[in-house]
């Protein structure tokens, strides 16, 4: 009971934390989805030495632990002369990290589009950019929705690590309230509840896409 009261009284802290989490995740997705698609195009279409270099870079980036990457960005930005709020270091590291994963996801999704689709598109005179825009990407949006949804949930979870570099997101808020009021269960339970809610929203979106997919592909 005491715990619930504490959480309710500190609700502005929680809301601020949740808002930061959401803004980080949405900001990240807004950047990393388009860049990830471009990266996937490079991974698919670029001439060989460049493509292999890119593939190695993406592979390597996916082996970096996110927390360490966040630290490097956090301590690295001032070295470049940029004295920014930790939130920006958080956004940058989250974006770089998520882009590498999305590039790989989109690359696999491009390959999953039936080759005869693309061949027919070529036969009908569609240009490369038209083929991506009208044939490949629309299908990828539908068929890769579950995998992308999974990645979004992963990004939400990764965002919590940013508390360690003092970004005031949701887990930071829970930890703060718990440390200041000595009732650990309620604040963390509240945070977990909010993360669960975010997860549900993403999964609902994926289920929606699954319905679209059933309608078009059977």
């Amino acid at each position, binding site marked *: 009971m005491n715990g619930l009261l504490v959480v309710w009284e500190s609700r502005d802290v929680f809301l601020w934390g949740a808002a930061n989490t959401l803004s980080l995740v949405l900001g990240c997705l807004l950047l990393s989805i388009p860049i990830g698609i471009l990266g996937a195009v490079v991974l698919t279409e670029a001439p060989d030495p460049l493509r292999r270099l890119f593939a190695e870079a993406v592979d390597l980036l996916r082996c970096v*632990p996110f927390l*360490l990457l966040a*630290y*490097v960005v956090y301590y690295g930005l001032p070295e470049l002369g940029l004295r920014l709020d930790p939130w920006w270091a958080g956004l940058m590291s989250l974006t770089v990290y998520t882009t590498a994963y999305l590039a790989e996801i989109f690359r696999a999704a491009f390959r999953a589009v039936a080759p005869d689709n693309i061949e027919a598109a070529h036969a009908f005179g569609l240009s490369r950019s038209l083929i991506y825009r009208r044939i490949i990407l629309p299908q990828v949006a539908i068929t890769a929705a579950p995998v992308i949804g999974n990645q979004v949930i992963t990004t939400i979870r990764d965002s919590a690590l940013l508390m360690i570099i003092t970004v005031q997101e949701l*887990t930071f808020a829970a930890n703060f309230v718990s440390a200041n009021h000595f009732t650990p269960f309620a604040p963390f339970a509240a945070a977990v509840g909010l993360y669960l809610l975010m*997860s549900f929203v993403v999964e609902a979106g994926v289920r929606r896409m699954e319905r679209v997919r059933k309608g078009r592909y059977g």
Partner: protein
Amino acid sequence: MTWPAIRTILDGAVVTAALAAVSILLSLPLGLLLALLREGRIPGVPALLAAFVSLVRATPFVTLVLFVYFVLPAAGLELEPVPAAIVALTLNTAAFSSEIWRSALVTFPRDQREAAAAFGMSERATFIRIVFPQIWRANLGPLVSEVTILLKCTPAVAVIGVVEITRAAGRIGAETYEPLPPFLVATLIYTALIATLVRGQRVVERRIARRFGLARP
């Protein structure tokens, strides 16, 4: 970056890897157990476990670590940082790997089970002799992926004071007032470790695929 500093970071890396190794050994079997219980017939258990798994999969790992360290004592389980870290790592990876095991169990060809039953095999024997040998090989890829993810998660345990690679790098940074070099070194070392694991996984996968034909159902 002096050599003693690098040594400190390497020691930290060893601690991180050791934590991860212990958790892997515990969590993969635990994940299998969870999957079997979820597909089992004990009333109430499947639903409970499904809720548990959903919860853990939606929760950020660092939040789980904090939860285990700060909340469990209130329920009577007071843990030192290192055991708490292992508990959190194990629960996290068990939940994720249970999904892999569960999907393998659910999609396992029914006719193979029926054949085993027709030949008089008990369910237990069927699992040990027929099901398990196939599913662990077929799912080696996804399982090793989970292991890789666990390795990447582990640095987060620094938040409850475990002295592993992140703390080591941080301490050196605090001593020298130059935090960037130790973290760069830590990142390089740890990334190299994970990259080696990933390469190794690919080689093993290819070898298994060659020996068992199509290793995927």
